[in-house]
């Protein structure tokens, strides 16, 4: 039974990517997101199609929360590698939980942006700024989570997960570094919709979710295959 | 004690320092004429040749499995080409 639940949690990794992307496409955040240098008119026009935008963002908001089961599953595998003092497991659980919230809250704020599109345009622009900057810039919990996972995998004597997955986690952590530059630029590759901020982070986090989901699924299936002979022996 | 660091590595290092000098000269004070433009552009392949040497010799990719050698070499060639073309 636990195996089935674990498999569902593994699938929630890729599911996060799919559902969130669908939501963003419906809302119009993808493929061309608003930027800090979008005009007031462009911003107001975006939120004025309020039903579609709200629906898309609600779906995206639900989608990003699928990250939570994956975080828990990662924790289950990390605790097996750490023995008496599962410190990295705890770090991952805490920071993983934080990442989920830090993805959800900005999307809720963005959804609120579409709640009363006839409001003062400056308020809509500010709400848009708040949502986007909150979405893009808090890299620390993500990076700490990735480093914890990477370190745990590379220290694991049993190699429950292949070692390259640990290295992918380290790489993904680096890919988040440019995101803090979003505070400093209104245009160009380092603005919040710039290629090295939004797009790089989107791709990096997507890679993380896909890789972890897929490899954990393999590990779960390997473990259940190993457990099966024992079950046969004791029955 | 031992034979120490192989002579090959020392030779490569000397080559790298030489190449650094060459790229420095190539990139120094060329007026905006067509010849100068091309000379500066040559600094990019020279730099990536250094990257190739560091990878093959220092990183020991030369004695690595073929897949890694091919991937590394492809990386060097792709980016060297792309960047040179972007400059020109």
């Amino acid at each position: 039974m636990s195996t089935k639940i674990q498999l569902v949690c593994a699938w929630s990794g890729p599911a996060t990517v799919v559902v969130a992307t669908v939501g963003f496409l419906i809302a119009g955040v993808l493929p061309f997101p608003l930027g800090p240098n979008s005009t007031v008119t462009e911003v107001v026009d975006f939120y004025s199609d309020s039903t579609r935008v709200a629906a898309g963002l609600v779906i995206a908001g639900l989608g990003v929360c699928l990250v939570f089961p994956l975080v828990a599953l990662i924790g289950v595998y990390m605790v097996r590698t750490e023995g008496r003092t599962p410190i990295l497991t705890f770090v991952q659980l805490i920071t993983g939980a934080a990442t989920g919230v830090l993805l959800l809250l900005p999307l809720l704020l963005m959804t609120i942006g579409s709640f009363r599109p006839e409001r003062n345009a400056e308020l809509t622009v500010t709400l848009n700024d708040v949502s986007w900057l909150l979405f893009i810039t808090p890299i620390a919990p993500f990076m700490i989570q990735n480093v914890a996972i990477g370190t745990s995998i590379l220290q694991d004597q049993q190699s429950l997960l292949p070692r390259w997955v640990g290295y992918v986690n380290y790489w993904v952590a680096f890919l988040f570094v440019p995101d803090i530059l979003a505070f400093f630029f209104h245009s160009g590759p380092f603005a919040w919709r710039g290629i090295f901020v939004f797009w790089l982070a989107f791709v990096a986090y997507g890679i993380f979710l896909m890789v972890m989901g897929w490899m954990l699924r393999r590990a779960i299936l390997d473990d259940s295959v190993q457990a099966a002979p024992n079950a046969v022996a004791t029955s | 004690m031992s034979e120490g660091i192989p002579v090959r590595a020392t030779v490569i290092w000397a080559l790298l320092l030489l190449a650094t000098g060459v790229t420095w000269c190539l990139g120094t004070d060329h007026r905006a004429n067509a010849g100068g433009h091309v000379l500066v552009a040559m600094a990019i392949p020279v730099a990536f040749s250094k990257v190739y040497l560091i990878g093959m010799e220092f990183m020991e990719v030369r004695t690595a499995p073929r897949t890694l050698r091919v991937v590394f070499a492809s990386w060097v060639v792709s980016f060297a080409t792309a960047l040179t073309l972007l400059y020109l």
Partner: protein
Amino acid sequence: MKVDSHVPTDLPEFLGGEPAVARQQCRPRPPAADGHTPGEPGLWVFILGDMSLFGAFFVVLLWQRRATPRTFEESARELLRFIGVINTAVLLLSSYLVVSALWAHRQGCWRRARISVLAALLCAAVFATLKVIEYLHVLRGGQGPTTNQFCTFYFVLTGVHLLHVMIGAGLLTAWLQQLRGHGSQSRFVEGVAVYWHMVDLLWVVIFTLLYLVCAA
């Protein structure tokens, strides 16, 4: 004997349960027939991935340059090129020292390995110091990360690279600690060496592009 499946019989180890049984490898890895992967295969996912991140930076840098080559040229000429050259030489020297250290490590010459790693760390310190001096010079000259596109790329590229240098210094220190105990985890040590050479080769391109190509 029927086991009640709802009663948990295995606590995790940190709550006092039994240590996990070592799991048999389901997929035995065939030995590489045609060469030795420096470090380990997984490491190269990171190395090539990181190199590609910088590669993307380089491409966008030269792409952006096409719009305003004169601005790039003026700003690039403000950089202290001789510091850039010295830094390149310093990092090349540090890479050479790391090669020396790796060979010494493999041959069991612990003292020579320790000296080489320490010398490489010294090179890293010199690099960082020169970088800071250069940053101060550029900032005092009135150019900051938001002045123009070139300055943004200068500070971001060299800044992220400096971050890599500092992490590399941490890895070299860890190697040093292994040497104190005459440890010989070749996978880790080779990995550290490969990472350091990556830091070196990235700087070679950064120097060429920022200090030379953009300034011409």
